[in-house]
């Protein structure tokens, strides 16, 4: 695989193999981010396409300071936010630093489902519970969790992709993890109540 600047040079020289390599490396990641935020596969495909088109037609916007992957995530994320803003009556929260500690919700469920057999955890029922839990998260927490814990970006990379400070990214990731844990715990222990 070529380094990012070499990839871009080859791409703009019209090398179809380079487009294929970039598409293979990044299309699904952009699709997952957009699908997670917009919940619509067709819109998610559109976001992936728009992002690549922007890379091809506005290459000067990629300054090379960030990794190409981080830059692509940022373009896709901003495109998703634009679509969400057009759809939602309530604007998304600004990316201000968030206080932690005092307002952090404390865990309410203490059932230990971590030793549940893999066959159960990877079954259709739990899969549906996982999907329901993550869709209940605010978009601002969902995006951080996806990039950091599912896609494996570092905190710094996720922060750059989402236009957040590292501190705000860590706070959002922590809140997302605790909220998802609580909702899954409620699934495994219906007697507990998730706020």
């Amino acid at each position, binding site marked *: 695989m070529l380094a990012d600047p070499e990839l871009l040079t080859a791409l703009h020289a019209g090398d179809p193999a380079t487009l294929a390599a970039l598409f293979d490396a990044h299309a699904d990641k952009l699709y*997952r981010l957009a699908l997670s935020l917009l919940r619509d596969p067709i819109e998610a495909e559109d976001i992936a*396409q728009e992002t690549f088109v922007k890379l091809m*037609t506005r290459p000067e916007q990629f300054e090379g300071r960030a990794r190409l992957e981080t830059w692509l995530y940022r373009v896709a994320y901003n495109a998703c936010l634009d679509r969400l803003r057009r759809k939602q009556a309530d604007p998304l929260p600004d990316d201000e630093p968030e206080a932690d500690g005092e307002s952090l919700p404390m865990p309410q469920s203490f059932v230990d489902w*971590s030793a549940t057999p893999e066959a159960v955890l990877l079954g259709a029922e739990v899969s549906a519970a*996982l999907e329901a839990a993550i869709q209940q998260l605010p978009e601002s927490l969902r995006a951080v969790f996806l990039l950091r814990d599912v896609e494996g970006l570092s905190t710094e990379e996720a922060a750059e992709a989402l236009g957040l400070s590292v501190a705000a990214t860590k706070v959002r990731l922590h809140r997302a993890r605790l909220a998802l844990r609580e909702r*899954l715990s409620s699934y495994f222990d219906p007697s507990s109540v998730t706020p």
Partner: protein
Amino acid sequence: MTCAELIQYLSDYIDQDLNEELTREAQEHLTTCRNCRVVLNTTQKTILLYKQTGRQTIPAERRATLFARLQAALSRDATGRDHVPTS
């Protein structure tokens, strides 16, 4: 370390981002507090489950169509056209 402090530091503990002293205090707390151990174990399992199952891909037939549209866009761009339709 109290339960509230352990929960506050939980993600940093999982990510091994705590300094040595706080890591030791967290470990000591976890040896004596069953509830915090459960929260740690289930949070780690939550992360692992999403990592294992959260990697949807573009459906194969849609993927081919999307790539063909991009190839067409690249071709137009190479011939000097500015406007690229996105759908």
